[in-house]
């Protein structure tokens, strides 16, 4: 009887193991099918590389949105990665234990805050800050609803992901290794730089990759602060319109304009393919780095 239960459980669980692969396939196929209405008509190059977005006229160029997505994500990472790593260095190498232990739940809390809450906060604080403080400092005019605002909010949302993994990486570096460096007369920073960061380099890379994934997958918070103007942004202070925001905002109209829904599904498909492609790339890089470290 026990053996039977075991075999049964094994079969059942094996089926579940196929689930992730099946899901990815289903999503790609499902979105593709729903995009066919437009994919059959518009050449792919026009869909992806034209910035002419006039649904009522039947023009569905996604370039503005693709660049918007890229700009916001890159801005967020440029802000998030250094700050996160430095914060993790502080917590791991300099902070007294009680600070480190109370910081961990704080970081987790930051991770748990919902996207819309970040969005509300972004609208209340970040947008006026960008429009009223940063833009004048840079000598430009901006309403505040901008790529920069999106990037700042997204960066803060990404902090916990990178910090959490980086802290684990640092913790895995044995204390005696740091001691070895210190006993040679190195300063704490020299030790951190040459020993801890070097030993943890691979893990930090993985943390950043994870951070990118997290940032890329965000929708609501960015949508609320980024401006949503369908034009290719030319500076950080310009509004942007990332792909997720496009889809979310036009849900209402999509049924009434011909092929609009297919265009939005194409946008969703583009997102899905980028995620897939990125994961393959990241996996390759991480494996190569791991092999080199070995």
């Amino acid at each position: 009887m026990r053996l039977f239960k075991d075999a049964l459980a094994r079969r059942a669980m094996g089926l579940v193991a196929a689930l992730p692969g099946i899901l990815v396939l289903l999503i790609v196929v499902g979105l593709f099918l729903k995009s066919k209405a437009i994919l059959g008509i518009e050449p792919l190059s026009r869909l992806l590389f034209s910035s002419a977005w006039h649904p009522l006229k039947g023009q569905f160029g996604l370039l503005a949105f693709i660049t918007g997505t890229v700009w916001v994500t890159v801005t967020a990472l440029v802000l998030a990665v250094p700050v996160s790593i430095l914060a993790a260095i502080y917590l791991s190498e300099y902070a007294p234990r009680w600070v480190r232990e109370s910081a961990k739940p704080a970081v987790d809390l930051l991770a748990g805050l919902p996207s819309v809450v970040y969005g509300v906060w972004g609208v209340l604080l970040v947008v006026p800050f960008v429009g009223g403080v940063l833009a004048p400092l840079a000598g430009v005019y901006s309403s505040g609803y901008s790529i920069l605002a999106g990037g700042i909010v997204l960066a803060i949302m990404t902090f916990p992901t990178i910090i959490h993994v980086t802290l684990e990486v640092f913790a895995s570096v044995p204390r005696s290794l740091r001691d070895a460096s210190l006993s040679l007369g190195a300063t704490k920073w020299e030790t951190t730089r040459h020993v801890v960061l070097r030993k943890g380099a691979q893990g930090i890379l993985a943390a950043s990759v994870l951070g990118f994934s997290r940032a890329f997958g965000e929708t609501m918070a960015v949508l609320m602060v980024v401006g949503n103007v369908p034009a290719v942004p030319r500076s950080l202070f310009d509004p942007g319109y990332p792909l997720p925001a496009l889809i979310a905002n036009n849900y209402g109209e999509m049924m009434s304009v011909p092929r609009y829904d297919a265009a939005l599904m194409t946008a969703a498909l583009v997102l899905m393919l980028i995620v897939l492609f990125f994961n393959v790339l990241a996996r390759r890089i991480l494996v190569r780095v791991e092999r080199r470290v070995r």
Partner: protein
Amino acid sequence: MNGPAPISIRNLSVFYGDLQVLKDVNLDIPAKKITVIIGPSGCGKTTLLLSLNRLLDTAEGVRIRGQVLLDGEDIYAPRTEVTRIRKKMGLLSQKPQVLPMSIHDNVAYGPRIHGLRSKKDIDRRVEHYLKVAGLWEEVKDRLREPASVLSVGQQQRLCLARGLAVEPEIILGDEPTSALDPQSSQNVERRLMELKQEYTVVVVTHILRQARRVADYLAFLYLGELVEHGPAAEVFANPKDPRTRAYLTGEIS
């Protein structure tokens, strides 16, 4: 002893939180000799050793009272520059900790940190100390390989070379052969005995036979107290304190 002792430990007490690990230790370490600190595990040997290069600073909740005089200056005085102190001492740990870099860079790490710039000088120094540690022949063709490819015994000798490369005055060893196979242990012991001509050596060990082999001066630590110390031959032949005798005969270990 010729001249003042390079290290003078005066009334040193160390607390981990409420627990007193070292009780009022007074000891002069003789110059250019091998001093071995022995005692049962947990009695504070390693703590005593690490108090000498202020590596205890890195632990949380440690309180230190008393003085450790290095060449006459108290290393625990408030404004002392720690990196300078540590440079005067080389530490060999129980488990070899090679830095995450090539064999060459491991040895070059210390000198580079302290300002040695010229590539020629660095290479020369690396070669010299690898030879002193007895490792040169085995690695001279693969200096650029990561240090992790070496065997444990080789790694320990690498750590020795690395520690010597900053040109310390004193070598500290924390059970330096415990993790090594007999052959490598012997190797390391031999090196240490050669090195005492140039350096003052302080070694902690729980292997009595090793102590008998290498010690010029012996210190016996029991439950945080420095029970007895003196020239090794004397202490081994005529231990004055009953606890020392008990330890040496294996009654307590």
